[in-house]
């Protein structure tokens, strides 16, 4: 084993002509499982992207590129997609990858017990044409399907079945919860949940090796101050995230570097659109002012986003005008303007709506979910006070927060949304569409906003193959959302990573950290 590894080390040394290296990194959360179909969460999928691969993968700029599939093409007039698979790919245990593994992984990832099954909602059937060709038949034309499965990872049928892990088990766990056997550039050689996970390069990997890592160790470090100390003392080579308040300090240190970027997550304020009356108010029984778009617009104009970014985010984030950031596909360039900060205008709107004397209401906010979330809410409260509306802020841990929102215990709330497909359709489906349990629409539309035109456009957007027509419809939806001020988008959350200065890496907007782009000099 050791002999073989050193042989790879030497081979890599020759290939990349940089010194091979040990690499340690830390993040706040440990991926809770090694099973790529059991939990659909960023820490798990981000980590496992080093170990497992999908048919397609995302490049440094988030564009979709071939991975286990070499090419794909639509079947007929939007009947489905045909994927040509890569030949000569082996799993970490040496077995060969072929179409049966794809079919098996589809069945596993779309089954009852899988957390990833919503990705396959548009699929009616998967057909193995030959060993290296697979057809995915869709119920309706689905132009986005190839890019929507970038995180769907392929498992080896033989290995998974031999270890009794053919069905993901989130509640009780199984062999695949702690062990992994992917086709990715790195294999898991040691796994102690919550303590450390060791990865080593997969010698039989099909891709071109760009990294020079011989061994990588991941340690979860929960306390941000400890993580910063570990980076400063050189105990780890990279941490994610760096607390905003430590950015300036780390930048002064010549041994470490701060890498900043913009995450895909947009932070916004949401309203209760359905309730007849306010729930947390001194004016019992008065009608709910947030049902009036003018009041929602007044809120948008009263919030000074630039001030929030300059003070609370210390200049590390960008203002947002829509539910997605400009980096996402389908972003509506025609609606890039956000309402200007205008206290007088906001007061005028309130007066017009009949609330010249203001009102009081309840604002719910998480305090451990987004960067400085509670501080942002406090700022919003004081900004709204200037136009005469009084918010009573209640901040709570996220584990209490979602149940509160589900039970409609709020008048206004804070929400962050990262589109899993990196497309503008995603937030429309989850946040704006009229809630419909059966069609799986609007599952995060807590306020119950409903607009017939949006509901009509959404299926059309989902199945439109023509880019221009699709964008026109997305533009129309963006306009409705802005005109109605369904949400008040505030800013795109920043990504802040810290590294030792001898480390080069790539920061992707989805906050995934990929070892195959790491070079230690």
């Amino acid at each position, binding site marked *: 084993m050791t002999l073989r590894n050193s042989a790879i080390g030497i081979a890599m040394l020759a290939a990349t002509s940089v010194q091979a290296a040990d690499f340690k990194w830390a993040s706040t959360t440990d991926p*809770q*499982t090694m099973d790529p179909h*059991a*939990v*659909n*969460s960023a820490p798990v999928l981000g980590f496992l992207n080093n170990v497992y691969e999908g048919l397609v993968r995302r490049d440094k700029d988030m564009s979709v590129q071939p991975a286990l599939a070499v090419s794909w093409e639509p079947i007929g007039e939007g009947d489905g997609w045909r994927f040509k698979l890569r030949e000569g790919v082996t799993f970490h245990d040496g077995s060969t990858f072929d179409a049966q593994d794809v079919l098996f992984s589809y069945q596993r990832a779309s089954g009852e017990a899988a*957390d*990833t099954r*919503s*990705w396959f909602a548009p699929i009616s059937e998967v057909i193995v044409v030959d060993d290296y060709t697979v057809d995915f038949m869709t119920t309706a034309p689905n132009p986005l399907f190839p890019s929507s499965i970038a995180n769907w990872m392929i498992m080896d049928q033989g290995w998974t079945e031999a270890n009794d892990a053919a069905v993901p*088990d*989130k*509640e*009780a*766990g*199984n062999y695949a*919860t*702690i062990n992994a056997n992917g086709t990715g550039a790195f294999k898991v050689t040691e796994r*102690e*949940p*919550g*303590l*450390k996970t060791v990865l080593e390069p997969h010698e039989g990997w099909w891709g071109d090796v760009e990294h020079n890592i011989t061994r990588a160790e991941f*340690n*979860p*470090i*929960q*306390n941000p*101050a*400890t*993580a910063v*100390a*570990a980076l*400063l*003392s*050189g*105990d780890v080579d990279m941490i994610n995230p760096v607390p905003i308040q430590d950015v300036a300090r780390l930048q002064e240190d010549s041994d470490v570097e701060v890498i900043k970027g913009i995450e895909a997550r947009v932070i916004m304020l949401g309203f209760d659109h359905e309730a007849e009356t306010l729930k947390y108010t001194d004016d019992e029984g008065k009608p709910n002012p947030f049902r009036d778009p003018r009041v929602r617009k007044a809120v948008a104009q009263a919030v000074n986003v630039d001030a929030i970014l300059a003070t609370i985010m210390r200049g590390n984030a960008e203002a947002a005008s829509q539910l997605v950031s400009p980096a996402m596909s389908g972003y509506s360039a025609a609606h890039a303007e956000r309402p200007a900060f205008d206290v007088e205008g906001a007061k005028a709107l309130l007066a017009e709506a009949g609330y010249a004397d203001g009102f009081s209401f309840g604002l719910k906010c998480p305090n*451990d979910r987004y960067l400085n979330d509670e501080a942002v809410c406090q700022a919003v409260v004081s900004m709204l006070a200037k136009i005469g509306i009084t918010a009573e802020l209640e901040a709570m*841990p*996220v*584990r*209490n927060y*979602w*149940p509160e929102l589900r039970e409609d215990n709020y008048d206004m709330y804070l929400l962050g949304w*990262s589109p*899993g497909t990196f497309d503008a359709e995603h937030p429309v489906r*989850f946040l704006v569409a009229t809630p419909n*349990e059966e069609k*799986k629409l609007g*599952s*995060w539309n807590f306020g119950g906003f409903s607009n017939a035109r949006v509901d009509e456009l959404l299926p059309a957007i989902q199945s439109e193959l023509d880019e221009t027509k699709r964008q026109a419809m997305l533009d129309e939806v963006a306009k409705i959302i802005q005109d109605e001020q369904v949400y008040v988008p505030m800013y795109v959350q920043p990504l802040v990573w810290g590294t030792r200065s001898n480390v080069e890496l790539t920061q992707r907007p989805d906050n995934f950290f990929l070892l195959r782009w790491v070079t230690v000099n």
Partner: protein
Amino acid sequence: MFAYIVRRMLQSVIVLLVVGLVAFSMFRFVGDPIDNMLGQERTQADIDRLRAELGLDQPFPVQYYKFLKNAVQGNFGVSYRQGRPVSTIIAERAPATLELAFVSGFLAITMGIALGVFTAIRRQGIAANVIMTVSLIGVSLPTFLIGILLIYIFSVELDLLPSFGRGETVMIGNWSTGFLTTSGLKALILPAITLGLYQMTLIMRLVRSEMLEVLRADYVRFARARGLSDRVINFRHALKNTMVPVITITGLQLGSIIAFAIITETVFQWPGVGLLFINAIQFVDIPVMAAYLMLISVMFVSINLIVDLLYYAIDPRLRVDARAT
């Protein structure tokens, strides 16, 4: 004596049951684990299904009853977060906490008693006054701050000791020990000091004040009149008589060293049960929280029992009283 032990045991069981009941009634307020277990694209149907599977839709006394029924058979359930049996996870994590608690407890007792005796005997000396002043820091600074300060000085600035973790460990049977490797021993220093400092100063101040009291007692004066040496008076007569309150406090503090290692473990990312518990709270991992709380209460209850029995051994008056009643 036997009746006393049996009575105390019964009391202990009742205490445990009440602790469990209170814990289970609180879990609802800790939050909802469902959102942590399902991804962003979950539906209400998924939420309801999982809640029913985990039994979270039932009232808490029913959940508690089920927990007890399984716990009696040694089954503490499966962690929501890790998908592995809770008993396995706790067995993996316990050595880290116990080793840390042992070292800091040892440090606290030896240093505490030694410094306490020293400051009591030489209470006018400069050294004693310096120690007393410095010890105020140990009592008044929060553990969290002491830990961060130590990390800053010894790992960031001086680069002598690791900033987090347990270093290399060696498995002896099922016990992972950090005592046998250099990195393991180095990793132990800062957390042990952080955890033990408060207890050390507490024991030291207690020993000192008890000693001062005892040194004024008649039998010490009489001993001096008999012409006994200072050493014999201080250690055989005085120190021994200060030990009853010291043992009580030390015993209870030993429990709290293990129970409240939570903060130290979080600061140093020390992979013990305290860190596990913090993780469990954040994730609302009810099986882990329940098992941890029960374990800690078992520990406190048994430490109290042992302390009571030690009184018997040390203080003859108790034995007389017991017989009289």
